[in-house]
């Protein structure tokens, strides 16, 4: 049965050897968002995601998730991070390797479409409370300046995304517009 712990000052977490390949591959990925540029509060919060480890007599070997380690302030997770511990008898090396790879691939497959960056800001503003905005991003609302800082794209690019969205054809509203659309010439007409 997995056992739950909370990390302390004496907790020592290392990478499980079976997860090394996945971790190395994931570490080399070029991400859309620059995580190190995120506000510290946000990074701390992300860094406190629960970890799954294999408990050995001397150490805890991490295998899922692997991406949080980038956000740790030290070489250990923040104190109080929830740890789900299994013994080597409860999970095989192969299962550990598979779980590690699924974890890093899941991060990729859940990523945002690059054309939707402007949408991200606009929709997040509507959905997330001001309090959380202020707490996580140190700002009243998520703004273009921050987006550009995190993603490295120019403000002009964001503006272009918005312009493109605005100029998307809107559905015809009036009867005359419909009639004009229906009456458009078509190559196959006899």
């Amino acid at each position, binding site marked *: 049965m997995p056992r739950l712990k909370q990390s302390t000052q004496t907790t020592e977490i290392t990478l499980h050897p079976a997860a090394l390949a996945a971790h190395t591959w994931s570490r080399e990925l070029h991400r859309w968002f620059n995580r190190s540029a995120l506000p510290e509060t946000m990074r701390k919060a992300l860094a406190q995601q629960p970890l799954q480890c294999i408990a050995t007599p001397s150490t805890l070997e991490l295998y899922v998730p692997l991406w949080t380690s980038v956000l740790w302030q030290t070489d250990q997770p923040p104190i109080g991070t929830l740890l789900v511990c299994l013994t080597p008898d409860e999970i095989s090396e192969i299962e550990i390797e598979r779980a590690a790879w699924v974890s890093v691939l899941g991060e990729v497959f859940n990523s945002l479409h690059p054309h939707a960056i402007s949408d991200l800001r606009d929709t997040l503003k509507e959905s997330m409370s001001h309090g959380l905005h202020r707490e996580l991003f140190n700002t009243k609302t998520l703004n273009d300046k921050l987006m550009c800082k995190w993603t490295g794209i120019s403000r002009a690019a964001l503006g272009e995304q918005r312009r493109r969205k605005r100029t998307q054809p809107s*559905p*015809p509203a009036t*009867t005359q*517009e419909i009639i004009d659309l*229906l009456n458009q010439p078509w190559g*196959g007409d006899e």
Partner: protein
Amino acid sequence: MNSPDGQIAFLDALIPVELPDTVRQTSLGYLHQLCLPLLQKHQRAGDMLNLPAEYLSYSSQHFPAASTDRAAAHKTLVSSKLLTLSPFASALNTPWDYLPNAEKYEQWLGLVILCCCSLHIKGDHNSAIESALREIRLIATSAKHKPLLELLPPPQDFDYLLQLDEHLHELRKNYLNLPSVQQLGLGYLAVVIRSVARNRKGVIRQRGESSSPTSVPPAPQTAANLFVPLVDTGVDDPEFRIEKLTSFSKNSENEDEPTTIVTSVPYRFHDRSLHKKEIALQAIHSIRLAEQMRVRQQSLPCSFEQASEWDIEHLVTHALSALTRNDHTAGWVLLSLLSGRDPGWHLANAHKVQITIINQVPCRTLTHQVPAGHQPNHLDALLPAVLNALHLPLPQQMTAWVESAPLQAPLPTAQVLRTWLKAINQAHSTRLTIGRINRYMEHWFLNQGTDRAVIALIRGDTHQGRPSLSYSHQARTDVLAHHYRFINAVFDLSGQQASLPPITAKSGALGSRLHLPGRVLHNLFSVLAQAFNLEKNFVNFHNKYVVYVWALLSFVTGHRDVNAPMGLLSDLNPHQQTWWISDKERRHGLAARTLVVPATVIEQVTLYKEHLSNVASYARLSIATVCARCERTLSGDENLLFFLEENDGAIVPVEITPSRLTLILGEQLPWARNWGRHHMRSELLRRQVSPEVIDGWMGHEELGEEAMGPFSQLGMSQLRRVADVIQAVLTHHEIKALPGWKTR
């Protein structure tokens, strides 16, 4: 009825077993001896066919040593006061040997007893039987009644009972001054003769409820029986009606199957003229009717009831000859032949038919309007125009008759028409009647494979009577070509020239305007596709995507604009590419049909299923009702197409109704939602698909026209060809199956 049990029951009812054996034996023996030869004679003439001869011969087999002393038997009846127990036995044993014209009496005795036997089998004539048998007995035994025998004619002078009946009728009128006893007596005898001759029904006299405490209570009704009139029996006589019995179980909602077994379908016939016919004629009439209905079930025109080419040839020759003599009736008869309508119809429909000279050509002008022929003015740029009048030229020989303004003059009566036709019938052994002349045009067109809508158009039918007329967009020249072919064929029969004016190439169409030009059809689906592609909100996206799917599927299947269109997903068989469509109820059940659908439909349904899966996963944790509905739809438990609505902040799935469709469609569909049926019917006709197959495809099948009926020669292969044609329409107009919501 012909079983020995039936014979015993019959004879026991006539001569009850309560009578002394000697009386029974005498009665049965004399019944056999007196009545059997007489019955055989009458049956040869077609009378009393309901009385089996074996019933009367039975007595001789079972009473070989029967007593023949009728005088003794009569005495026994009188002394035992049994004269009223059995009117038959009393009449049979009446002594008549001493009468001056005994032979005539015996003939009358035999005839009356036979008639009474026949009426006994028919039932409900007990009073007439008792009165007649008493009268014939009293003629032999009572001095007051005896003179009646002198008045009665010898029955053997008449070959048929009807003749005797008419003679007795005259007799009663001529001898009104007879003593009342004899007048009544004559009446009693005449009633049984008439009832048998004219196959009259008996009379049941019922007493009031309070005075019949022993009456059987009515059986509990488990099902409500209802006679439903059959539509268009094809019989001209307004007095003739056929109804079909249908049963509606009151507990049908609790039953999977009806609890009563119905082995046949009962029909009820109302024919006021039937009681005037002899029973043999009735039988022939019924056989003919059954044949007529059966032949109609074969999806083929009924031929044996139509005028032949021989008839029409002589009719035309005679009519044209008579027209040169300004015979008014000849013009009407010829018009009936060429219009498929009797003269009276033209007068009753004077508001929509005119017979005039146009550009020096005699013409029959019909006003033709269907609902889809009227569209708002702002659609004029999109939809083809239609004409409201159809000018059907008549042969040049009718010019003078048309100039005489026939509709203003009194119409020839039915009697005049019959007399007019009688001359041809007698001269050329034809069998022309005005009904056959009226029907000939439709019969001829059907044999040529002409679209029923075109026939209805030429005949001036309304779209209510022939629904396919509402959906058709007919080129005027096509209709005229059919009309010309018929007139020329009819005139060719008699070697005449109709001299019709040439058909001008002037364009113009009749009927529905909803035959979309190619660009409009293509653009319509583009507009519907664009509408959902622009939506980001998944509820709006789903609704507009469903509209596109509905538009495509209903267009391709000719689905009616009903609640829950397209039914369930399980109605589609993707392997056979068939779809079970049930969009109408008619007559006594569903008007469901199975159609073959083109490949695009299968593709669209596959994409729609993917859409539902994506919507289900999107809504899984947040909108459980939507997720569950998607899953039930995919499993075929709920209707295929549904909308999503916001109700008090919650998103709920709702069924598609015409009003909801209107709401979601908005201005995107500026004409009727069943436009697909209009367009596809006209398009399939244009692409040379058989009209009968199209009617089957659209569910426009009346009695005897069922494309997939048991006698139909049409099959699924024809529907596969229709699917190929529809696929070609979709491909040509770039109408495609489109994917729906994607959860990324």
